[in-house]
């Protein structure tokens, strides 16, 4: 009887203890079953966390864009959402003697956060881990907001024509961190250092390179972009709550070192970083354009978006480049201060002139601060030999130290329009034309991106041009003919704001195009590539004149010859904030063939009608005269 009682008590104890265990401690299997019940692997957030997208090519299956096998816990993780979900849940619950850092909880904290929320996973069910590396990276989980950084375009490097974006994790300023030490995440092309320009361009267009996500302190980027490449930076802070901010920071941790196939036009830096932000439900960052994504278009999309009923962009901060700081400081100088800067520069840093000595202390500080920016700027333009430039900089630095700290009247930074505020990037233009030889017709002009010398906007290089795939057509006598296809067109002009030595108006052009040989022929398409080098001057703030000398090769059509040289003169005039114009004269000379090139004259006026609408009036002469007026719409 006694034994029976003990047996019954024992059985009861076992059952009750099992019940307590199952009530308070669920294991991976329990949550896997729950995930199946909820069909969680089909959730769009899970797909985004694994970066699933339609595979390239004809086989339109869903698979992850990430190529690293260590991003997946299941062997089929790249192609099976459900297998990866199951393995992830197993791994999150795994109790192991391995180092914490290798555990799924430390490697995939965003997956953990999301699964805990969706499956109501209790902390008590999971093994406790420290994840020290992640804590160090986030400065003890102190990320309080996320910013997208935009670096303006740099025409010296094809990979950065359209600007660049990166993400920054803004730590709480109560920690020992400042903005410059915040973590940043960059997606960049991985290319061999010896790749030549043509191979580089072609491979980056067709997916011949990989792109990789890396992390580094933000000051590395401010140094590279703002100081070395002289590119302005804009910071867009996102209006996300703490839970959403943590979610993105954790997912970025999962992605460090991960590789994708890089495509210059669409799946580029802007796309990859913007899609990461979209793991937060309701956040919209990607424009709907199926062909190409420009960094600036992402900013414009974000600035139009709302999240939780508030604008997605909380704040915008401008970080001027060394060049912009020089221009701002120089423009703010009094004429006497400017004269002193010019005198010191042209007299090899002579601070002993009576004019300089008689300046008030603050003026001297203004002058020496401007000189510091000037010498660092000219160092980049290689105007002076580096050792001379460094010596002159050192002399200005000593002078600045001598003058004491803090300027009373600090130059306020010039208020520039943020890149998202400008017009949209693509344009279609329709117009009517009269050609003295061909008669009346309609002009059709499509430019997928980006800008010309008349419509360069915020975030673009002023007085410069950048276009790819720009198509000009005419409809005459019920027949549509291609006038010109600019496959690549780049014109780079240094703004030359100070006119100090070294801040010169060096300019260059490159164009690869298919174009009619002149205005009177519609069946004379010829492929041509041309390059020019020149110089500009700015007699006044709104008036630029320049000269180019160049050469090119082309199809020999109608005895035009294959090689030509040309001189050109041009001018850009800004009449008002909404009206500007340009004038161009081209004087070509055929170097072979029997046909001589005909001079070309062009006058174009642009009138802004609204942010995304403009009107252009054009008079052109090349064999014959043509006049047109067109209405343009940016989209």
């Amino acid at each position, binding site marked *: 009887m006694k034994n029976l009682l003990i047996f019954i008590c024992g059985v009861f104890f076992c059952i009750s203890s099992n019940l307590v265990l199952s009530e308070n401690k669920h294991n991976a299997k329990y949550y896997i079953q729950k995930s199946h019940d909820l069909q969680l692997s089909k959730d769009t957030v899970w797909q985004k966390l694994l970066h699933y997208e339609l595979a390239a090519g004809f086989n339109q299956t869903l698979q992850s864009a990430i190529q690293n096998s260590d991003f997946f816990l299941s062997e089929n993780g790249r192609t099976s959402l459900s297998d990866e979900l199951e393995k992830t849940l197993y791994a999150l619950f795994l109790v192991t003697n391995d180092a914490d850092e290798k555990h799924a909880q430390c490697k995939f904290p965003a997956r953990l956060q999301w699964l805990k929320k969706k499956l109501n996973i209790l902390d008590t069910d999971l093994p406790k881990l420290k994840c020290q590396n992640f804590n160090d990276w986030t400065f003890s989980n102190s990320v309080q907001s996320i910013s997208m950084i935009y670096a303006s375009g740099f025409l010296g490097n094809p990979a950065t024509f359209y600007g660049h974006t990166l993400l920054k994790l803004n730590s709480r300023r109560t920690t020992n*961190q400042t903005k410059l030490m915040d973590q940043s995440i960059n997606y960049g092309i991985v290319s061999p250092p010896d790749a030549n320009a043509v191979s580089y361009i072609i491979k980056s267009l067709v997916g011949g390179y990989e792109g990789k996500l890396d992390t580094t302190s933000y*000051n590395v980027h401010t140094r590279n972009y703002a100081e070395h490449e002289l590119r302005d930076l804009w910071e867009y802070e996102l209006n996300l709550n703490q839970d959403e901010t943590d979610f993105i920071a954790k997912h970025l941790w999962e992605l460090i070192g991960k590789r994708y196939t890089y495509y210059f036009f669409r799946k580029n830096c802007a796309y990859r970083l913007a899609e990461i932000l979209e793991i937060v439900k309701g956040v919209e960052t990607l424009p709907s354009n199926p062909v190409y994504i420009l960094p600036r278009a992402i900013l414009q999309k974000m600035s139009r978006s709302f999240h939780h009923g508030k604008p997605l962009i909380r704040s915008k901060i401008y970080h001027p480049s060394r060049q912009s700081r020089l221009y701002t400081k120089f423009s703010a100088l009094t004429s006497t201060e400017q004269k002193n800067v010019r005198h010191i520069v042209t007299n090899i840093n002579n601070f002993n002139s009576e004019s300089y000595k008689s300046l008030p202390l603050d003026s001297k500080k203004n002058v020496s601060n401007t000189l510091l920016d000037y010498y660092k700027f000219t160092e980049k333009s290689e105007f002076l030999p580096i050792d001379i430039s460094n010596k002159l900089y050192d002399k200005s630095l000593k002078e600045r130290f*001598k003058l*004491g*700290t803090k300027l009373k009247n600090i130059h306020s930074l010039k208020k520039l329009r943020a890149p998202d505020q400008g017009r949209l990037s693509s344009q279609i233009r329709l117009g009517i034309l009269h050609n003295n030889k061909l008669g009346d017709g309609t002009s059709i002009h499509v430019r997928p991106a980006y800008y010309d010398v008349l419509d360069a906007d915020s975030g673009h290089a002023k007085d410069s041009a950048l276009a790819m795939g720009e198509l000009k057509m005419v409809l005459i006598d019920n027949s549509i003919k291609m006038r010109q296809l600019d496959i690549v067109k780049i014109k780079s002009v240094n703004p030359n704001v100070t006119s100090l030595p070294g801040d010169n108006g060096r300019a260059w052009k490159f164009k690869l195009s298919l174009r009619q040989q002149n205005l009177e022929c519609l069946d004379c398409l010829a492929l041509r590539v041309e390059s020019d080098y020149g110089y500009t001057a700015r007699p006044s703030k709104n008036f630029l004149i320049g000269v180019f000398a160049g050469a090119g090769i082309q199809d020999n059509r109608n005895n035009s010859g294959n090689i030509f040289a040309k001189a050109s003169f041009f001018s850009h005039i800004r009449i008002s904030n909404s009206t500007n114009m340009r004038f161009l004269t081209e004087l070509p000379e055929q170097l072979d063939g029997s046909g001589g090139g005909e001079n070309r004259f062009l006058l174009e006026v642009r009138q802004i009608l609204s942010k995304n609408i403009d009107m252009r009036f054009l008079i052109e002469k090349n064999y014959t005269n043509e006049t047109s007026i067109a209405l343009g719409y940016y989209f």
Partner: protein
Amino acid sequence: MHINKIVLLGFLIFVSNVSIAANPYSECGIGAAMFPNTPWAAATSNATWDLGSTAVTSATTSKDTCSAGNMQTAQFIIDNYDNLVEETAEGQGEHLATLLNIQGCKGQNRQRAIQNLRPDMVKHISSEDYVSQNSVDRALGYYQAAQSAVATSCS
């Protein structure tokens, strides 16, 4: 005599704490690991690549020289030397604030540290060999001046 000994001892403790002679560019990081007996090669390696995140030290270096904080300070200085030295002349700026943050110098102490740093930097940039110094030597001069200023002002 007794007082003199105390003063001397105090001075030695101060000097050892602020590591005036410490050179993280040649004594720490990957460079020190690769070229333990060739300081210029170690410094060149560290300047070309970076100091690395691991506190590698050469055999002759004190542990403090290559602490994570000092390594971070040294790296930040060599990376941002121009901005730092210009802001030091100005007496304020984002890079200067960041440097003092890394070194844990806060509040009112910061202004004192900057005031102490300026005269040392004037000496540094006015020295005869400054013109011929490479980026590592220049950064080292700033590093030592900053360490000294922080030790004096921010304890």
